[in-house]
């Protein structure tokens, strides 16, 4: 599975590659995917075969992991018109392997199941509609023979949901909406929110202007994790729509939240909104990393979140109560989180709106960390966070809802945060809430992190470096110049020959890299929702690309 395990640790127990020999890593083979948009998926390895899902048209390719020889590919044939509703490049975050099949989603709202041996399609189910501005980009998770998937479209006035499909047949078993009446959100008598303000009836309706929840966002384009003992799946919801907050007074539940549901029925066990009445597009879709940590003298079952607002949350994953929330990057909008009420204490003077250009908001829209996933090493006790150091000016403008077209209503300009570096790869102690070390990067770090038992962590940069780092000290042990920038998570596997390999895909793009992948014009800083202003120099460092690299010790 893309996250290594249900807990989303992205930690491998392999230790053949360690701090003493990582410097000797050599390229074994490379494979060109044939696509040159943003590559956001990690490769999957199963029994000698590597599988990769490319950006649109989402070809699933099977490669001999030892030699790089192509075995077969499968093309789900998504409609090209779906590219018109993809907010942030034509990406896909990967497949999930379960029971002999690979499961993934397409931009045009299909969920596909493919036989992992033959490449034949087992089933394909359409679950959304591009005419509503809906698309899908996330990596599914399969739990108890149910394929869990969610939709994208927070920039298109799409109502967010998570669905479970029968992994055998592809039929939809349940749909849990993230806005609207309790009956549709699947909030029932077993709902136990950790904070008093979330107790009430139909809060997914009453915290919005009339009927606005129907086009309110709260999408599910990030990661889903699972605790088999508690039998809970955890995922986050994206921003409320439109971005202009003045159009939607109210807390806008249940957007920008983390939600725990029962996988069998979808019933909500608990929910917590990181950002009520979000004004900065601080999506809550980041990974919920599950770990058992020694806190306050005993082992606590926690859920870790490095959030867009710059705070690192340690939460009790059974109840949703926050144990601690401390900033891991510079932030000037959220001052603290009230642990009694759960509410963030915000600097309201920084809120944008109609005729209100708020300046120097830190972090910027992508947050201190966006979807790019962190990793946790039980050996070092550290969490490895790929982080972004950007600030922004933002203003709210009129937004018109027309189904199938963007519904945002903002003017934004992003730029480097304090220090001038736009990214950092951080080694963070989640128990002490302290930064142990950080590697500053010129560009936002959009690759995921990989942690290994050899105490080597891996990440890639948008300016074409793939790095191996000492997990304890943060010293760079090895780096390799890839052909294009990296925005995907690396992975590691033990080959059939018993050797440990490291693989990663390059191919710059995504929202941050669209100036390259989509050829945007650097003269308009407001372009790409304000990202162009912060990435004008990216084309000087990289072109688009798409190659999978596999490394090993000689």
């Amino acid at each position: 599975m893309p996250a290594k395990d249900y807990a989303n640790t992205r930690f491998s127990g392999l230790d053949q590659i360690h701090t003493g020999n990582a410097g000797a890593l050599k390229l074994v083979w490379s494979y060109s995917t044939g696509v040159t948009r943003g590559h956001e998926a990690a490769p999957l390895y199963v029994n000698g075969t590597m599988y990769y899902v490319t950006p649109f048209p989402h070809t699933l390719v099977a490669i001999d992991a030892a030699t790089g020889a192509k075995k077969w590919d499968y093309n789900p044939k998504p409609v090209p018109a779906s590219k018109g509703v993809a907010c942030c490049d034509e990406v896909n975050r990967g497949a999930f392997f379960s029971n002999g099949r690979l499961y993934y989603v397409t931009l045009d709202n299909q969920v596909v199941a493919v036989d992992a041996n033959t490449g034949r399609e087992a089933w394909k189910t359409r679950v959304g509609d591009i005419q509503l501005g809906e698309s899908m980009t996330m990596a599914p998770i399969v739990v108890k023979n149910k394929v869990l998937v969610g939709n994208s479209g927070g920039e298109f006035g799409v109502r967010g949901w998570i669905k479970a499909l029968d992994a055998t047949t592809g039929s939809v078993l349940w749909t849990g909406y993230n806005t609207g009446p309790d009956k549709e959100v699947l909030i029932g008598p077993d709902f136990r929110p950790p904070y008093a303000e979330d107790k009430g009836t139909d809060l997914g309706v009453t915290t919005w202007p009339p009927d606005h929840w129907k086009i309110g966002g709260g999408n599910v384009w990030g990661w889903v994790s699972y605790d088999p003992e508690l039998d809970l799946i955890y995922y986050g919801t994206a921003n409320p729509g439109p971005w202009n907050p003045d159009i939607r007074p109210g807390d806008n539940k249940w957007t920008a939240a983390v939600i725990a549901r029962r996988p069998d029925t979808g019933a909500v066990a608990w929910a917590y909104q990181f950002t009520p009445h979000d004004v900065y597009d601080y999506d809550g879709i980041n990974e919920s990393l599950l770990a058992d940590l020694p806190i306050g003298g005993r082992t606590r079952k926690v859920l870790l979140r490095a959030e867009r607002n710059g705070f690192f949350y340690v939460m009790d994953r059974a109840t949703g109560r926050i144990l601690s929330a401390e900033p891991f990057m510079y932030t000037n909008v959220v001052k603290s989180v009230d642990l009694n009420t759960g509410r963030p204490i915000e600097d309201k003077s920084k809120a944008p709106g109609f005729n209100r250009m708020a300046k120097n908001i830190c972090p910027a829209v992508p947050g201190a960390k966006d979807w790019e996933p962190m990793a946790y090493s039980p050996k070092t006790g550290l969490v490895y966070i790929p982080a972004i150091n950007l600030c922004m000016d933002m203003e709210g403008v009129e937004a018109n809802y027309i189904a199938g077209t963007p519904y945002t209503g903002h003017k934004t300009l992003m730029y480097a945060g304090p220090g001038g570096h736009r990214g950092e790869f951080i080694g963070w102690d989640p128990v002490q809430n302290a930064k142990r070390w950080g590697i500053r990067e010129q560009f936002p770090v959009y690759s995921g992190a990989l942690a290994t038992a050899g105490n080597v962590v891996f990440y890639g940069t948008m300016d074409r470096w793939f790095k191996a780092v000492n997990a304890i000290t943060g010293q760079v042990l090895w780096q390799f110049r890839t052909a294009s920038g990296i925005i995907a998570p690396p992975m590691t596997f033990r080959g059939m020959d018993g050797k440990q390999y490291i693989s990663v895909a390059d191919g710059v793009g995504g929202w941050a890299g669209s100036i390259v992948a989509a050829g945007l014009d650097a003269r308009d800083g407001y372009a790409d929702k304000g990202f162009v202003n912060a990435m004008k120099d990216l084309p000087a460092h990289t072109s688009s690309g798409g190659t999978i690299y596999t490394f090993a010790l000689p």
Partner: protein
Amino acid sequence: MKYTAALLALLSTLAVSCNREKRLGNVTPGAAASVQGTRESELQPGAVIPSADISNPFEGNYDAMNQGRRLFSQFNCSGCHSPGGGGAIGPPLIDDEWIYGNNPANIYETVVKGRPNGMPSFGGKIPSYQIWQLVTYVRNMSNAAASRKGEK
């Protein structure tokens, strides 16, 4: 006198629009179909027939350009192409690269017909004169940007 002038104007308008709306009737076998819209490729097999460009009725009209600017935002063109035309989900409109051509009729048809890689089809949803206003604004975007070449 006024009536005569008005009648003449009406007749000439009808004459012009009649010609423009003229459909292909019985096509003589062997005769070539003419291009009703506008070409989207410079490549023509055989001898080159000069393009009969449909011109923008609002070309050079500042009021039309301003209306176009308003419509660009109202119809959410700015959502995909960015308010300043630098591009995002859709390609930039301020540079000199035009996937589907930059003469007024090309842009008009892009808006009406949509394009295969994500440009929605607005045909039948907004009136023709508003599309020409948008065309006026969009063509002005790249002209304005060209004069700002080199500016950061």
